[in-house]
């Protein structure tokens, strides 16, 4: 099992969600996050005072999948989120030790989907 963490542009969420549903990945957790990458943040100005280093709005998706779904999930996220410019975001993949469905008590691969 893998946990796929994707940081994407907020306005790409709908496209990514659609692409994931097309490959039968339907379960995800979505959060609003702030961050900065190579493009750095904005500078804000309040009554003439500059406040540098403002972070950019991003959306984070947490998706747990069984091994057989990893590649198609990555492909779907790339398809939905890529514009080719800096700021498109990143995908992180980490090993997932266990998964438990709270309602039934099922564990492992059966609990993921």
């Amino acid at each position: 099992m893998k946990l796929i963490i994707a940081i994407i542009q907020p306005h790409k969420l709908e496209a990514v969600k659609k692409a994931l549903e097309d490959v039968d990945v339907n379960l995800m957790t979505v959060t609003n996050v702030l961050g900065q990458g190579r493009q750095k943040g904005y500078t804000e100005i309040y009554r003439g005072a500059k406040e540098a280093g403002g972070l950019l709005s991003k959306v984070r998706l947490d998706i747990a999948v069984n091994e057989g779904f990893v590649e198609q999930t990555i492909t779907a996220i790339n398809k939905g989120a890529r514009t080719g410019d800096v700021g498109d975001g990143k995908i992180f993949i980490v090993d997932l030790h266990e998964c438990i469905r709270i309602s039934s008590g099922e564990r492992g691969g059966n609990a993921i989907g």
Partner: protein
Amino acid sequence: MNSGDTAWVITSTALVLLMTIPGLAFFYGGLVRRKNVLSILMQCFIIMCIISLQWVLFGYSLAFGPSFHGIIGNFDWAGLKGVGAAPNAAYAATIPHSVFMIFQCMFAVITPALIIGAFAERMKFSAFLIFTILWATFVYNPIAHWVWGTGGWLRNLGVLDFAGGVVVHTSSGISALVIALLLGKREGYKRQPFRPHNLPFTVLGAALLWFGWFGFNAGSALAADGIAANAFIATHVAAAAAGLTWALVEWKQNGAPTILGVCTGAVAGLATITPVCGFVNPMNAIFIGALAAVFCYIAIAVIKTKLGYDDALDAFGVHGVGGIWGTIAVGLFAEKAVNATGANGLFFGDTYQLLVQLMMVVVVSAFVAVMTWILFKVVDAAIGMRVEEEQEFIGLDLTQQSEAAYTVIE
């Protein structure tokens, strides 16, 4: 007695209440960090409670009661004794004396509330309460008497302050500067970002201030007449000119016009036109308002940054600078063609008014600075003015009031 005048001044009284709560409360509340927003709303709200009571118990008598050598009113009208439905011709011949009293009450309330901007995010609540009552009694009440009270020594010299450029804005602005210097900077000032936590609140507050200011300025005619109409129009166009000018200045300086800038400019224009709106024609009001934005912008974005004092929400930069410029503008632009009971300023052939206006600014500023310094030192020695560093990091909402404005998790 005139029912039209009475109705207008009663209505104006309610409009001026709206300036403090929720107008100023939200204007300031949006500018602080989220951990301190309730402290601002609380300070504005509780000032409405305590100063209203101080006013009817003895403040009104000190400010407007029978004069003790032009310095201060006596206690003859304490507890509103003799302040009833019969008009007091020396103040307003066509409305009940009680209506004049309650209209003036709202001015006494908003003046110390304006100072909140200077000490925002770091003042101990108990110290704030005591300081505010002392300030109203020993600073606001005497100044109101000097400038507006029958027998007041500045009034006898012929100074003009239509709706409070000196009494309200200069006094609160100078006091704000002194407190900002004495209290010191907020922890982390200039080392970490201080972003307004909710600019829509600030915009809402500024819009309510603009709306309420019609009562403040046009209501100060104390009649529903041509002077009130002139004050209304002058107020409106000065705010419009100042809001636009601020946006253009920062567009040129910083590359973008901001809504905070437009709101700040509009409020600066409103503060500035306050003493002069009943004496100038609307075209000159536009000019006065536009210059108000330039002066206040320089004070806030250039001078404050250079000197490094932490007037957190620019109470001095907006109300002090605007109030002083407006008071001087009376001596330049006032014309008897607009208001026969006023005077002619320098540009209409008379230098006396300008001299007496300048003298008033200097004398009142010096008095306010000294008195604020004394009251601050007294309260600071007694109970301490500033919260502990740890409390400041946690925020005043939780440490002073045991409540939080926003929930993150339900």
